[in-house]
């Protein structure tokens, strides 16, 4: 019989974990563990889902002329997991310019993911036509074209939010009153012991206001989530990992599969960052989320293409 710890360690090796970091939460205390040692210090549960973000299909500039290739490599990485997560989320910017052919290409590529479901929220690049016609034609069904909806899986309550449709001129992403009212209703009466995962494209907390890296109603959202024992907030948009823990809430942004962006305030704006070719794979990747226990905090495992 194969020792469980050994098989988990082997599984982690399959993730290409040399560059990875495992984030764990214990009683609200946040700890980062190098993945090469993770199997010996913590129990990693079955992958619950995988997060892919900012695929930007249609992008073809110097920062990465082959975004299809890097998305394919990201998908291969997920498909090579020894235990497949049951579903995937895409936290937006599926396309670069909201064009039908870009969405079509992305859809064809993402079909290769060995998961039963793909949940997608729009990024601002996906809705540059205003109403998001192309995006919602493909991904609007679960939300009746509103973009925000919730579902339960593996005992966890998942909430998909949209903060790119009613942006505030001059400022941050926004949820809007209708969505906040819906969310209040969705959370009311829900047991505080149920783990909650919230995902949206733009960061749901303010990372860097001058670049619009945040959401106007972030504080209201955090107040609504505070009573829950385990809350994980996942975003994309900034093409790099930034995390924060506030009480029982873990905020975490994912890498892009397409191209990196500068760190906050470093340069004229949040545009594509050109790095030496050998560095690019270390700055692209996906996030795998595992349930450690039924009601406990979730483990976030960031894997790069390197």
């Amino acid at each position, binding site marked *: 019989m194969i020792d469980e710890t050994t098989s988990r360690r082997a599984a982690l090796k399959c993730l290409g974990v040399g560059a990875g970091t495992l984030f764990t939460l214990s009683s609200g205390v946040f700890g980062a563990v190098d993945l090469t040692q993770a199997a010996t210090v913590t129990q990693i549960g079955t992958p619950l889902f995988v997060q892919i973000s900012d695929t930007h299909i249609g992008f073809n500039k110097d920062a990465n002329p082959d975004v299809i290739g890097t998305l394919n490599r990201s998908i291969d990485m997920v498909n090579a997991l020894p235990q497949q997560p049951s579903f995937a989320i895409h936290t937006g910017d599926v396309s670069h310019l909201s064009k039908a052919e870009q969405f079509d290409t992305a859809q064809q590529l993402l079909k290769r993911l060995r998961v039963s479901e793909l949940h997608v929220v729009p990024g*601002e690049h996906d809705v*540059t036509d205003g109403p998001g016609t192309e995006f919602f034609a493909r991904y609007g069904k679960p939300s009746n074209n509103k973009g925000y909806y919730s579902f339960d899986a593996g005992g966890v309550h998942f909430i998909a939010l949209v903060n790119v449709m009613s942006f*505030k001129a001059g*400022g941050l992403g926004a949820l809007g009153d209708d969505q906040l009212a819906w969310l209040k209703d969705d959370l009311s009466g829900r047991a505080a012991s149920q783990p909650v995962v919230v995902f949206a494209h733009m960061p749901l907390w303010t990372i860097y206001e001058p670049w619009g890296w945040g959401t106007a109603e972030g504080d209201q959202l955090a107040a609504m989530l505070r009573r829950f024992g385990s809350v994980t907030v996942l975003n994309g948009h900034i093409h790099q990992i930034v995390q924060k823990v506030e009480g029982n809430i873990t905020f975490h942004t994912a890498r892009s599969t397409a191209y990196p962006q500068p760190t906050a305030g470093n340069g004229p704006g949040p545009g594509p960052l050109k790095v030496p070719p050998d560095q690019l794979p270390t700055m692209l990747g996906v996030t795998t989320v595992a349930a450690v226990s039924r009601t406990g905090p979730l483990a976030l495992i960031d894997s790069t293409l390197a």
Partner: protein
Amino acid sequence: MIPKALRHALTAAILLSCAVPAIADPNMVVMKNFDYSPMSLTVPVGATVTWKNLDGEPHTVVSIDGAFRSQALDQNDTYSFTFKKAGTYKYVCSIHPKMMAAIVVK
């Protein structure tokens, strides 16, 4: 020694290559380094304004009151709109709403 005629031709070529679109077309707004330039442009009624994105990141031109809206403009893409009514038209980039500017039509 460069002949005089060639020298003049070279000077003209250098001047032309240095000319930015905003100078070539008074009704042009460029998007560069996550800003519109100029940030305020005054034009007569009936004028057509053209926006050109010089950044490697796409931008849009979306008027606050809904009068006009471009598609996502990739690098070197342009968008034009003809202003038929007087007024002040504030607009933003819907991808980077920190980018704000205005067209004043008189």
